[in-house]
């Protein structure tokens, strides 16, 4: 079958899709976007977290056909067109939250959603928001530090922006 969807702002079409394929398989193997990772393929680890019409989902649990006509954002679609990293991506590097990095794309997509919704999350809020993303390397401490740092930097920039606007 044919599946047409919008990925990271670009219309994309995949032909010859077997109906049992997941959105994850289509993204990785048919559209050349391997950033979303295939760690468990049963919705337990969060490594393939993407935004589907704005909602966080595990792409491995979405049948390819369900994504027909949908807007999908993957980790490849987060950095700016000039390669500018988002505050979350920068913070992951600054705090040492990237080791093997296999969980990183999923964690970053989930963390972006949290920071977009709440610039002052408590540690409990961060833990709850990221509890669907397994990491085996970092012990999560650096991940927590990254989200705190990204939220604080974003909040600072928002404040500075507001002050500039007011002037």
């Amino acid at each position, binding site marked *: 079958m044919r599946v047409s969807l919008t990925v990271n702002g670009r219309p994309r079409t995949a032909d010859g899709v077997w109906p049992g394929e997941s959105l994850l398989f289509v993204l990785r193997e048919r559209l050349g976007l*391997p950033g979303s*990772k295939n760690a468990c*393929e049963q919705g337990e680890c969060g490594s393939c977290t993407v935004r589907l019409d704005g909602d966080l989902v595990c792409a491995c649990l979405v049948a390819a056909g369900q994504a027909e006509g949908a807007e999908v954002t*993957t980790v490849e679609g987060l950095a700016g067109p000039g390669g500018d990293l988002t505050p979350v*991506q920068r913070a992951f590097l600054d*705090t*040492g939250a*990237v080791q*093997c*990095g296999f969980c990183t794309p999923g964690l970053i997509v989930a963390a972006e959603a949290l920071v977009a919704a709440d610039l002052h999350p408590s540690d409990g809020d961060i833990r709850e928001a990221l509890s669907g993303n397994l990491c085996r390397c970092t012990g999560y401490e650096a991940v927590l530090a990254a989200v705190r740092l990204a939220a604080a930097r974003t909040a600072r920039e928002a404040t500075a922006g507001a002050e500039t606007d007011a002037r």
Partner: protein
Amino acid sequence: MTAPDRARPGAGGVGDSAARPDGVRKVIGTFAYSSDLRHDDMLWGHTLRSPHAHARVLAIDTADARAVPGVAAVLTHADLPAATHYGLEITDQPVLAADRVRHHGEPVALVAADHPETARRAAALVRVTYEELPVVHDEATATAPGAPVLHPDRTDAYAARVPHPNVLHRQPVRRGDTAAAAPTADVVVTGDYEIGMQDQAPLGPESGLAVPADDGGIDLYVATQWLHADQRQLAPVLGLPPEKVRITLAGVGGAFGAREDLSVQAHACLLALSTGRPVKMVYNREESFLGHVHRHPARLHYEHGALRDGTLVYVRARIVLDGGAYASSSPAVVGNAASLAIGPYRVPHADIEALALYTNNPPCGAMRGFGAVQACFAYESQMDRLADALGLHPVDVRVRNAVDRGDTMPTGQVIDAPAPAAELLRTVRDRPLPPERPWEPTAPGAAPDLRALPGGLSNTTHGEDVVRGVGYAIGIKNAAYSEGFDDYATARVRLELDGGAPVATVRSAAAEVGQGNVTVQAQVARTELGVTRVVLPPPDTTLGSAGSSSASRQTYMTGGAVRQACAAVRDEVLRIGRERHGWPGGALRLSGGRVLDAAGTPVGTLADVLRDGPVERETVFRHRPTEPFDPVTGQGNGHVQYALCAHRAVVEVDTALGLVKVVELAAAQDVGRAVNPLAVTGQIHGGALQGLGLAVMEEILVGPDGRARNPSFTDYLIPTVLDTPVMPVDILERPDPHAPYGLRGAGEPPTLSSTPAVVAAVRDATGLALRRVPVRPDHLVADRLGTAPED
């Protein structure tokens, strides 16, 4: 130092929290892991695995599978071109089962097809006729009279040393005269301990791409821990000379020991050579659990005798490790368990025996901590029992016996570098404790924060039956390969001009598995050569071996090799500078692309020399030699280096429901020299959390039928961020005079002590003896394996 919370700006040399060279690609999603590889015209490989733990294979019929449209090849043992077995230490593992399967999940047949689902469905159509055999699943069934012998034709080096052919390896360690000393002890504590089967569970699945080459050889791109060990095992299996088996490291999604043994390597190459097309293999999570070795489950019996003041008089220990169906690295695991069996404590009299069994359980091999983890849970549990029996604080009884430089291990090896066990224990003890009842509302009228309670958002308690406990532990781990192994690492460094500026290219075959070895190699080159830009091409087998990325050895070994190669390049640059450019004699150093004399005055630049062409040197680095342990007494200078980590755990236990929440897990570790403080801290956090997992949740459940019952992330539980406590870290730097920069292997020690520390805290909270990990709710509420404290 305490742990840094973010990368410091700096020159990116040794001692800086330099940034990872692969970091940006990993956060934007373009870093290519082994499962991301693609090739035009590629096929997908799939493995058919045994549903039985022990069975005779009577017949294999592949006709139906071959008939499936899209299938390019179906292979069985009958199609193997050359050697039929492989192995890390003992060549006992079939590439594909021939007449017998020895464990659940053993590979039986291979399929290559144009779609992964086609390959899976075709594999399901391979008809294998089995006759089930009795399952050997523990020491009793393995050594009973008439027990099935799993490897009747053994010719390995250990076969002559063991009491039964199903005993894979056995290592005693005897020091002093335990029998004579025992009556002089004022107090004796004994205990039996058990450790479940833990899995490394790296997030990246086993995967690789094999591409047949025009010269009849193969190019394999794969996630592994040791390229050259793969090549050494693969070449005979493929019937190719080693130089035609070219292996390049593909991006590795974590390892922790799971990638020391072959997984997809041989199978993908066989399918590629058979079909003449590139073949990609990617395990799903269930196959990953079935397709790699695990941490050895263990049963341990310990007896400690001490004087009234806590001074240890003697220790007796027997450690039985379940090696599963094939040897993997079990002999070395036995050596570690035996030689590190009593921990970082002075004991004049010791009588230790460690052994590994062949069984029909899943094969076990390397996992972070490698034999020392099992012993540490037992000896630290024993130290707590001793403290209880003597009315001493658990830290005091440990400090009284703690080793330091100059003390002797039970193998007779004298510790000839700093080993500040007492200081590490005091450091974690003296940290302030976290606030009590953290779930209680901070403002009047606010709701309690359920997330801070055992059970969390499940809303199982509001704190009624919750009790707090505190526990301590310390562990000792060897770094690098031991027992006389010729352990070395190769590095090649080239210094040249690029756009007028010096750039260093550092090549090694060291596997970057997430730990940050690429960062460290660049830091070493910057420090030694005074350059900013360092390039690291992907590791492959065209360069000499770097050894394994395991045993906490890669910063020491490949870091040491890069340092040595840089020194050779520097010497050559200075020689040329003196001969051709009139640089003065005496001590010169390189900094910022310039050449400085002892007073810091510039005498020239790297460019002066490099304008004439690059300077390149390749060297092989070896650590100081070690000795095998004596087969009868276990005496010998078997280890290169010892490393220590201590933990204090604070837990809260819901005693009504048996739920545990670890509130805080504080670590103190001596790393000799923190080459990259941020990375070292990450190793301590990650290692500690894996130990926490073993303490309270992680176990592959294997029934008496030898089958793994929970090979999935739904049923094999690894800690989430909600299961993770706050983990403060204190890093000590007491340089090892024998090691490059004084560093000490850091990746494994935190995995040892965190498990017993957490369990000690749960014991403190509940009063139960808790002799088995992982601790499960029924141990805490049903008084089964928890057992009463006087037990």
